[in-house]
């Protein structure tokens, strides 16, 4: 993965618009967060291989960036995106990594299903 280049990523987001795509979206502060610090409120969410069709995909803000997908009847968004990659299978992988190298958020878009 490389650091987000706004123009390049915007172009890639456009390429997946207006067709059925598989989404992976996760955000987490880790299963151990409350173990190491009991004052931490442990929260996260995860969806994988849900099919959506967005009409507009947009990158906003300075790094860490925000990505929003506008659907005919709703929205998907992720904040904290630092890195991106179009992988060898043509999937658009976006992720936010904190200073210690831990993943904090991921948003991925693919025309074919992700593995299990």
């Amino acid at each position: 993965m490389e650091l987000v280049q706004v123009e390049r990523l915007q172009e890639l987001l456009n390429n997946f618009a207006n067709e059925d795509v598989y989404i992976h979206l996760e955000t987490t502060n880790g299963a151990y967060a409350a173990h190491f610090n009991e004052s931490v409120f442990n929260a996260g969410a995860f969806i994988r291989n849900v099919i959506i069709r967005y009409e507009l995909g947009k990158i906003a803000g300075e790094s860490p960036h925000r990505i929003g997908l506008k659907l005919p009847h709703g929205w998907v968004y992720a904040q904290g995106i630092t890195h991106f990659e179009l992988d060898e299978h043509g999937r658009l992988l976006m992720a936010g990594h904190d200073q210690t190298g831990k993943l904090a958020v991921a948003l991925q878009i693919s025309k074919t299903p992700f593995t299990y």
Partner: protein
Amino acid sequence: MTLPMERHVLVVFPHPDDEAFGVSGTIATYIKQGIPVTYACLTLGEMGRNLGNPPFATRETLPQVRKDELLASAKAMGVTDLRMMGLRDKTVEFEDDEKMVEMMQNLISDTNPSLVITFYPNYAVHPDHDATGRAMIRAVRRMPEEQRPTIYALAFSNDSKEVLGEPDIVHNIKEAAEQKMGSMRAHISQTAWMLEEMDKRLADGETEAENWLNFERFYTYDFSKDFE
């Protein structure tokens, strides 16, 4: 330390690297003693958060990285019967409970263990850990008492010592320290920070770090104090 003889040891954990910190020395010691060990790992740690910055892997390439690490760890410990069970990280507790018990029953009937090592439900912090221990204990509970394998359970939640007391089983694994370090190093994508920390603590002469390379601790699961 020579550990008591066992017919077969079955180790069941949900994540590659779960064995490294708390059990790899014990596993290596059994293998040195010629006792067959089966290690069943339920997931490939697909949802691991240590991906580096700059990242060395993506969410999609991490499973292969961790699979290779698991294979390397098994090799370091001398494990030849490694089973990858194909579940997904962080979803174990959401699988059908009965399906999970069946998975454990199949592992038991396949390996006929005299000893099972897994997590202590409710005291193992990660939901996958608790779910794994829960399924295994349910499977063993359904066996006739005289046929049940002994269960060594791992607990490390902050309240575990307070509630369960000190672990009753302490293995001195000094002679397998090399294998244990091998297992730890095999899982480098997940253990790098831990190893760094440990080197620092060893350099500072902290006895706890040394402790960790010398001893592994378990609770013999007691069905008279069942978790449910």
